[in-house]
């Protein structure tokens, strides 16, 4: 599983009200990726549910440092401010969310009838234009918004992204530097800088920034989203790491039985996650077992890059070190998983993984067969990540772009869909053995 898939699992548990189950997965994930900001956000929401306001505020602050326009983290901060009686600060945060994402499902209930639609500002228009793929218009609005409120770093970041999307890389670099001066962990600014530096030939510096981004977003999910929209780019984004599923949380009676047992020691070698004994603290389980695609050995995320930082490390000192296994999801592995036989669904890899592996190996005929057969089914998020990666490849064929467009239509993201279909029109078919454009 990728970290993002694990996170989705945790989020689903959280949404279903299974907070302990969600926290179990989140802590497992943070054991290996302590700065994974989306996992930290989910941990913050769990803290809020358990009335641990101080910890929740810390997590929200961390997330807003990484993603200053994160509506969920802003809403969390707003609720916490209201609870401690700071209504004015809370209102300012709500207004900011109304500008960033006026359709956020939690906004209306959180603001308790407050009519945020009446306050359309330059920032509102800037964010709206960016959502709909009009960076030139967004640039004008964000420029005006920054002039009237230079202290809002999310507006400066919005301006940087708009300028970058419009192809004015040098100007965007200037704005990103300003953002990173105040928020050195700002993920979007790091990714824009990584791209711009790579484009001007400073590839090593670009790769360093990309590695830093991987600590915050180990799947490179945002990188794929952002770079996938570019006409072309030279940034080599590594594949997502593969994480073993978390060990099963012991039942309460089983945990009670283990109280007198000596604590389990960390595994020295690769051991399936299901065989790793949980220690006597069921909520803080072992760290995720991480497998990195060896095809990108030179660019893969090293564990030293995701090692816990003393300030941000999770609260469990007993978390065993993750184990890296030399396993490569190559095309041969995909064959062994039965890619030739679309009905062989019981193989060890999912259709998403097999399609991605074939595409990485340049075998478009088999990749397209899997994409066209399965990408209209479930696993929308997994397919989105896979197709974004596949379409980012230089030789991505028409069928991949079409499938990405179809997926965006199903996700009610027509602007992204029209971009993907536009690329499909330009690309050549890869289904008949045509290897590239």
């Amino acid at each position, binding site marked *: 599983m990728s970290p993002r898939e694990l996170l989705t699992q945790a989020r689903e548990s959280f949404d279903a009200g299974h907070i302990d189950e969600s926290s179990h997965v989140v802590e497992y994930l943070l054991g290996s990726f302590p700065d994974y900001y989306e996992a930290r956000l989910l941990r913050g929401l769990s803290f809020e549910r358990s009335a641990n306001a101080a910890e929740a505020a810390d997590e929200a602050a961390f997330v807003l440092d990484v993603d200053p326009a994160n509506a969920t983290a802003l809403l969390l901060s707003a609720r916490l401010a209201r609870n401690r009686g700071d209504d004015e600060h809370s209102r300012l945060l709500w207004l900011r969310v109304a500008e960033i994402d006026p359709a956020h499902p939690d906004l209306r209930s959180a603001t308790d009838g407050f009519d945020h639609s009446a306050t359309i500002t330059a920032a509102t228009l800037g964010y*709206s234009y960016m959502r709909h*793929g009009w960076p030139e218009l967004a640039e004008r609005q964000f420029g005006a918004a920054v002039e009237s409120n230079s202290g809002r770093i999310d507006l400066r970041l919005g301006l940087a992204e708009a300028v970058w999307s419009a192809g004015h890389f040098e100007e965007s670099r200037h704005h990103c530097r300003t953002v990173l001066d105040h928020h050195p962990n700002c993920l979007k600014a790091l990714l824009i800088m990584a791209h711009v530096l790579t484009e001007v030939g400073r590839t090593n510096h670009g790769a360093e920034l990309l590695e830093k981004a991987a600590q915050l977003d180990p799947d490179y999910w945002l990188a794929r989203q952002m770079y996938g929209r570019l006409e072309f780019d030279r940034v080599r984004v590594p594949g997502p790491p593969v994480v073993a599923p978390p060990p099963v949380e012991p039942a309460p009676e089983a945990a009670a039985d283990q109280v007198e047992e000596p604590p389990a020691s960390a595994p020295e070698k690769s051991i399936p996650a299901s065989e790793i004994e949980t220690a006597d603290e069921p909520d803080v389980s072992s760290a995720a077992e991480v497998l990195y695609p060896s095809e990108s050995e030179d660019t893969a995320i090293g564990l030293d890059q995701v090692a816990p930082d003393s300030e941000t490390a999770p609260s469990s000192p007993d978390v065993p070190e993750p184990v890296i296994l030399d396993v490569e999801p190559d095309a041969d592995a995909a064959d062994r998983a039965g890619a030739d036989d679309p009905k062989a669904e019981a193989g060890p890899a999912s259709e998403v993984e097999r399609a991605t592996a074939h595409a990485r190996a340049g075998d478009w005929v088999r990749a397209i067969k899997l994409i066209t057969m399965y990408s209209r089914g479930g696993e929308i998020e997994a397919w989105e990540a896979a197709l974004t990666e596949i379409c980012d490849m230089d030789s991505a064929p028409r069928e991949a772009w079409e499938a990405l467009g*179809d997926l965006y*239509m199903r*996700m*009610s993201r*027509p602007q992204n869909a029209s971009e993907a279909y536009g690329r499909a*029109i330009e690309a050549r078919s890869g289904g008949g053995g045509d290897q590239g454009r």
Partner: protein
Amino acid sequence: MEAAAIKDGEEALAAALLGIDDVKGAVVWRLGGVPVASWKREYASPVAGRMLAALFGGLEKGVEDMGFGHISQLWWQSDDVQCIGFRVGEWQVLVLADTRLDIAGLRTRVAETVAGYWDESKTSNQEEAD
């Protein structure tokens, strides 16, 4: 089973719209669904129908985000074709026709076809349920 029925329904409606005189193409989709297109002659790209649907969706979302409400009808004309778009509940329809065609007449016939299909679809669904 349900998904197959929906797909057939979109294809049937697109084919019915294509039966209107001087209509060159029709695109039908549901919110959150993949568009289905039907053309009388070969267009430059097989993606054209889906691209038009996505562009319409982008405009629709933009208009909604600006607080101007939901687009229920749309019309545009180029050098070669005119296009009329409808939203009926969760269904969306785009019809491309020759520029010579009278827009009011085209709109009426498209609306009748959609309404007829809508009634048929509801009747057959009811029969299946019975």
